[in-house]
């Protein structure tokens, strides 16, 4: 059996030799991310069945927890790492041709690093490494947001950097407080002892961690960096940021709240925040004219939905939230990738410049439509299944509080429907802008068409057969909710 | 079976004869009120015969069919209205001498719908000519119909609710048992009487076929046999409306003779009032119909509903 540690080690190694490969052959670096992610995808998926039976705990340097650095490849971790690898692979393929200008080698290195960071975050078993991987993720994304190097993207990158740095320092403070209290960094170890110490100081550390990770998780009001960053980055990076990076943030928050602290009682408060996030995201997206900002705001809205599901603290709620993680990752990555070439084609990020794309780039438009329908939650696409699960979970709590919040959240989905379906109308039924009337049909290169098509196919396939992921979802939800068995699994006997 | 066939033939003929005579009577009454001698009672008969022999123009098949539809519709309506006779067995009124060949089909609701055929046929026929006067006349006709239908429907509904049935023979039978409708639903009777001129299209509601303004409106293009048939249709329609009034409020008739006498009384009363009034505009007609008759009918209906629910 391969060790989960390869999921981090191999891509990391590949990332560092990429510049060397670039020296050897000019075109080589652009294939490296794809190779790395293909490897990760195969490994993650092959490990998943084992992890569903029992989490795979990897101890480094022969030390046993709580003292060692260890990875916990549980169902949740491997599910997310498979997702990361899948999206990463598709984006990497997309990036081969999409990234032509600028420091391309560095782009490829950094894009691997983002993905390694995200993989590390979901697999690590101790808080400090959580922080380290988190930083790898964040720092590479700061750099990539500013990749185009024009003033807007540099400004966005700088803003992101400032807020991200504050978040990171909060995380560090939180970890420091935890270490002071328990003298340990292993999540399982802290979790086992957390009930013994219940003090205000502990809550302060929790508050720091939530706020710190919350910045990356794009929870309201910590998400102000997101629209700028996601819209200024190259579309392939936007896809990763929206599809994966913020999910890593969510994962970190969920781990902290559920596993480390077992702080179920603050969840109603989190639920309130989540619905606020959702509504504000959708409302801001509603009259947005910039397609990428619109998609970014819509990501905020979907984050709200995910957090809402998580905040229900029930198995159905958490698995629903994880389902939204998957459906949103697929759909949003698809939308960013598809709109990437549309923007390249028209040279404008105005929503109206997409008008008439249905005849100019029919396949891309079709896939875009599939993604948009999925996000709105229309069957038979995967978004419907995830929305259905969220609603079901909320109603199964039989708690008036959640039912009311659900009603508000559904208003958000109505708004989402309004703006996405307006774009779809534009694609097919609005005349193209004057200068583009003469243009003939021209699809993006195969390296873009294939990832986009695969994503669309996945959206339909998982939408029709949610059973494909359902079992993993249940186990992953359990992984998050069942603290005792987590502790037991990691600490061993 | 034989009686039924005889009745089927008899009642339209009665309607034709009485209707056309009523037209003549109408002219006579107006003339007398105007201190003129007036034409003889049978003048409409002469007119019809004369016109039948004249040749008409035609604007198309619908132009011709419209007239057929109007007259046939009015004649069919007659078959659903009891024209006197005592109801003994309600299950089969026919067997006991009620002159109403198709009483067993649909009741008052069917009558209301069949009464549509007249105006509708005329409207379609007249519409087929490209004469704007005809169109304006039809527009007025339909509006006027809407205007008087509101109180008329209220009246009918009040009666139907009062007797809890939609069958006219049943309504007649109940009146013969327990007093006339004019006593049990008096406000409805008054309201119906007020809109009678509008339903008959006589003064002051003769604005549909006003000769001076819109060249007789829907009739503008018609001549010869078509005009004759339309005149007959007017007579039959008159008969239907008055007969319905007698059936709903005056207890029908013990036999045909008393029925016709009651009709005569109602008609003369309506005509006397109408004759002294000038023609009014369509807006005023609508306003009138939706004011007093509607208010009275509404009041009666409210009373009926309340008294039934208590």
């Amino acid at each position, binding site marked *: 059996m391969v060790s989960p540690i390869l999921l981090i080690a191999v891509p990391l190694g590949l990332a560092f030799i990429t510049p060397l490969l670039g020296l050897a052959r000019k075109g080589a670096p652009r294939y490296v991310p794809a190779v790395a992610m293909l490897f990760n995808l195969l490994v993650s998926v092959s490990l998943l069945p084992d992890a569903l039976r029992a989490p795979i705990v990897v101890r480094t340097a022969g030390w046993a927890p709580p003292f060692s650095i260890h990875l916990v490849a549980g169902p949740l971790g491997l599910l997310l790492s498979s997702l990361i690898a899948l999206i990463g692979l598709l984006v990497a393929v997309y990036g081969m041709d999409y990234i032509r200008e600028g420091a391309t080698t560095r782009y490829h290195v950094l894009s691997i690093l983002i993905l390694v960071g995200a993989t590390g975050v979901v697999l690590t078993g101790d808080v400090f490494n959580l922080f380290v991987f988190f930083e790898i993720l964040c720092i590479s994304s700061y750099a990539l947001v500013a990749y185009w190097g024009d003033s807007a993207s540099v400004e966005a990158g700088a803003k992101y950097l400032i807020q991200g740095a504050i978040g990171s320092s909060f995380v560090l403070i939180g970890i420091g407080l935890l270490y002071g209290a328990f003298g340990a960094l292993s999540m399982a170890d802290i979790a086992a002892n957390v009930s013994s110490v219940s003090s205000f100081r502990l809550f302060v550390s929790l508050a720091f961690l939530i706020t710190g990770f919350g910045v990356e998780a794009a929870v309201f009001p910590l998400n102000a960096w997101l629209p700028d960053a996601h819209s200024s980055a190259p579309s392939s990076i936007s896809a990763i940021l929206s599809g994966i990076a913020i999910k890593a943030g969510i994962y970190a928050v969920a781990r902290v709240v559920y596993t480390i602290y077992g702080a179920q009682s603050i969840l109603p408060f989190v639920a309130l925040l989540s619905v606020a996030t959702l509504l504000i995201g959708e409302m801001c997206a509603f009259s947005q004219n910039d397609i990428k900002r619109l998609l970014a705001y819509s990501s905020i809205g979907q984050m709200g939905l995910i957090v809402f599901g998580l905040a229900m603290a029930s198995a159905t709620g958490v698995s629903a939230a994880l389902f939204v993680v998957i459906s949103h990752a697929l759909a949003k990555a698809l939308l960013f990738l598809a709109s990437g070439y549309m923007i390249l084609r028209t040279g404008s990020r105005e929503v109206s410049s997409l008008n008439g794309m249905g005849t100019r780039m029919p396949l891309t438009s079709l896939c875009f439509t599939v993604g948009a329908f999925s996000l709105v939650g229309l069957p038979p696409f995967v978004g419907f299944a995830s929305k259905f699960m969220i609603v079901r979970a909320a109603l199964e709590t039989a708690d008036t509080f959640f039912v009311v919040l659900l009603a508000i959240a559904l208003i958000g989905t109505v708004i989402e429907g309004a703006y996405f379906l307006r774009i779809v109308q534009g694609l097919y039924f609005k005349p193209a802008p004057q200068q583009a009337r003469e243009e003939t049909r021209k699809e993006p290169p195969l390296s873009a068409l294939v990832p986009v098509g695969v994503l669309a196919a996945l959206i339909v396939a998982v939408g029709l057969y949610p059973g494909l992921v359902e079992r993993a979802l249940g186990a992953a939800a359990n992984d998050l909710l069942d603290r005792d068995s987590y502790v037991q699994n990691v600490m061993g006997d | 079976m034989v009686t039924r066939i005889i009745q089927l033939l008899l009642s339209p003929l009665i309607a034709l004869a009485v209707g056309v005579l009523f037209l003549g009577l109408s002219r006579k009454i107006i003339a007398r009120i105007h201190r003129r001698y007036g034409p003889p009672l049978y003048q409409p008969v002469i007119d019809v015969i004369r016109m039948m022999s004249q040749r008409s123009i035609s604007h198309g098949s619908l132009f011709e069919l419209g007239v057929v539809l109007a007259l046939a519709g009015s004649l069919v309506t007659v078959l659903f209205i009891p024209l006197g006779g005592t109801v003994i067995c309600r299950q089969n009124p026919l067997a006991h001498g009620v002159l109403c060949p198709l009483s067993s089909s649909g009741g008052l609701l069917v009558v209301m719908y069949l009464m549509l055929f007249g105006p509708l046929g005329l409207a379609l026929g007249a519409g087929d000519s490209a004469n704007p006067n005809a169109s304006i006349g039809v527009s007025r006709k339909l509006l006027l119909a809407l205007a008087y239908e509101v109180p008329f429907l*209220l009246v009918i509904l009040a009666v139907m609710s009062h007797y809890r049935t939609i069958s006219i023979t049943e309504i007649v039978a109940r009146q013969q048992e327990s007093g006339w409708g004019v006593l049990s639903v008096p406000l409805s009777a008054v309201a119906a009487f007020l809109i009678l001129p509008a339903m008959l299209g006589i003064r002051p509601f003769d604005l549909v076929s006003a000769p001076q303004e819109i060249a007789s409106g829907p009739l503008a293009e018609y001549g010869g046999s078509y005009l004759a048939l339309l005149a007959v249709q007017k007579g039959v329609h008159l008969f239907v409306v008055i007969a319905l009034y007698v059936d709903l409020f005056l207890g029908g008739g013990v036999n045909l003779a008393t029925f016709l006498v009651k009709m005569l009384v109602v008609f003369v009363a309506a005509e006397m009032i109408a004759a002294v009034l000038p023609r009014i505009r369509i807006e005023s007609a609508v306003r009138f119909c939706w004011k007093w008759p509607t208010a009275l009918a509404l009041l009666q209906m409210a009373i009926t509903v309340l008294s039934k629910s208590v």
Partner: protein
Amino acid sequence: MGAGAILTVALAGAGLSYPLGLLSAKVRNVFATAVSALLVCLVAAAYGRSGEHVYYSGFLGLDLILRTDALAWFFAITVSLVGCLSVVFSLRYVRGREKVSFYYFALLLVNAAMLGIVFSGDLLSFFIFWEVMSWAAYLLISYNRGRALYAGLKYIVMSIIGSCAMLVGLLSLYAAHDTLVISELAERIGSRGTGFLLGVLVAFSIGFGIKSAMVPLHTWLPDAHSEAPSPFSAVLSGILIKMGIYGFVLVMYALVGLKLLLGLRGAWVSFNSVLCWLGAIGILIPTFIAVLQTDAKRLLAWSSIGQIGYIILGMGFATSLGLTGALFHTFNHAVFKALLFLAVGAVEYRTGGVRDLNELGGLIKRMPVTFACALVGGLGLIGVPLTSGFVSKWLIYKTLIAEGHPFLALAALVGTWGAILYVYKLLHNMFLGQLPEKYAHLEAAPFTMRLPLVVCGSIIILFGILPGIPLGAVGPIVGSLGLEPVQATLTGFGPQVGPLNMVSIFAAAALAVLAVLLVLRASAAPRRVAQEDSYAAGSPVPAGRYHHTVRFYDPLEGATIGYLRDWADEFYTRVAGGARGGFDGLRRIYTGDVRNYVMYIVCLLAFLIFVQMVWHIW
């Protein structure tokens, strides 16, 4: 053939029509027609069957079930019939336009989804097909571009609101009873108290009300029906809005059941009575708004809202008479409204897209068959005896009177008289009167357009004279919903219901017409003249346009136009506008100044700690 086969054919037909269109337009057209005709046959062959089977087990932990029964069959035959006619009509209508393959794909998909809805044996598949129908319809409504985009967006937004409400309703049922299978739910439903039941019913009613354009949830309809391509307007008005009715019947009668339903009442109101009153309002106001319209399709759209009012009114009374009337009227309205939309579509096709009632006229001379069919459809809409519309309306009126609701009956009857006004306006302004010079050489509608019209017209007349045929299919439905089926004979009703014999009315009318025709035959034959040869009181007939169409019912229009505004629509538009403004204002929280953003982060931290200090949430 079971429901599974029918659905497979329908969905495969939709899916294949697009790729076939890329190969050859002709093959696609033949294929689409064949599939839709095959569906009619398959559904017809399934008459009288009943049964359930699981076709997909374990979708999100639930079994998806198809079921066939009398109710499903009745709606399925309506759907497949109107669907087939609209495909046939489309053959010429969309020829030579853009995205024709897409058009057929979406049209067949809407039909397939509707068949899916009616054959669904559990609420989840019901909902899935419902949503597929919604988005496919949205794509088709937007097909005409221009104003159609607004209509399509309005439709889909309202539709999403409705489906959110439905989703909440059906998942509440799931949370309470742990199943979504209709037959199982029907057994367990009563266990949770009336308050819960009422909440669920209201949630469903919002969904169904929006789809069936029940006042005050109707506001998408006038835009969508008038802007959609005409064959699809026929589908929209004919069957798509009936899916809401199907939903109402399914949930109210099949799921909740009569006994519980009638228990949902307070001192003064009950669930049913609210529905009835909404139906009555839905008859009155839209009918008179329809009278004011100058766009033929908009007029018909408003008329659809009015006719839905009749159906809701009949359905709201939980009596066998009312339900029979409502179901029969559902079918009738599907047929005659499809006919009228297709007739307007034929005129639109020949005149190059004109449907303004003030620009047409005299087309009876050029398109006599279209006119004759439209006339039959219009008479059916009014409910003139000898058309099928009469029988269904008669049943509804009779229910209202028998149940002692004369005020509701008044609304229904006045609505009918309003219908006379707008039907005549439609027929007169398009087909009667002066034929404008530019249309003097118009061709008659092509055969594939006339065929659906004639079929619809024949159905209206046939079922008007022999209402027993469709009522034979309605009877078992009413029986299966726990009511005593209405005793219908082939020709009408026996004395138990209140006698009605359409054949005797038909015979009497035929005799009367014959008699009058004989008299006419005996008199002098008329002389045909040209349209200019008309009486103008001695002065010459003016050149140019003199057809009386503008403000046809002038005094009425003048008096009512101020009151007959679409209050609901204005309200929603205002809310939407206000919300939009609010959203824009809200966006200002993202000031673009990173100092503010940092402040937000610190504020949240401080707030969290503050909350803990004060309330000790953990």
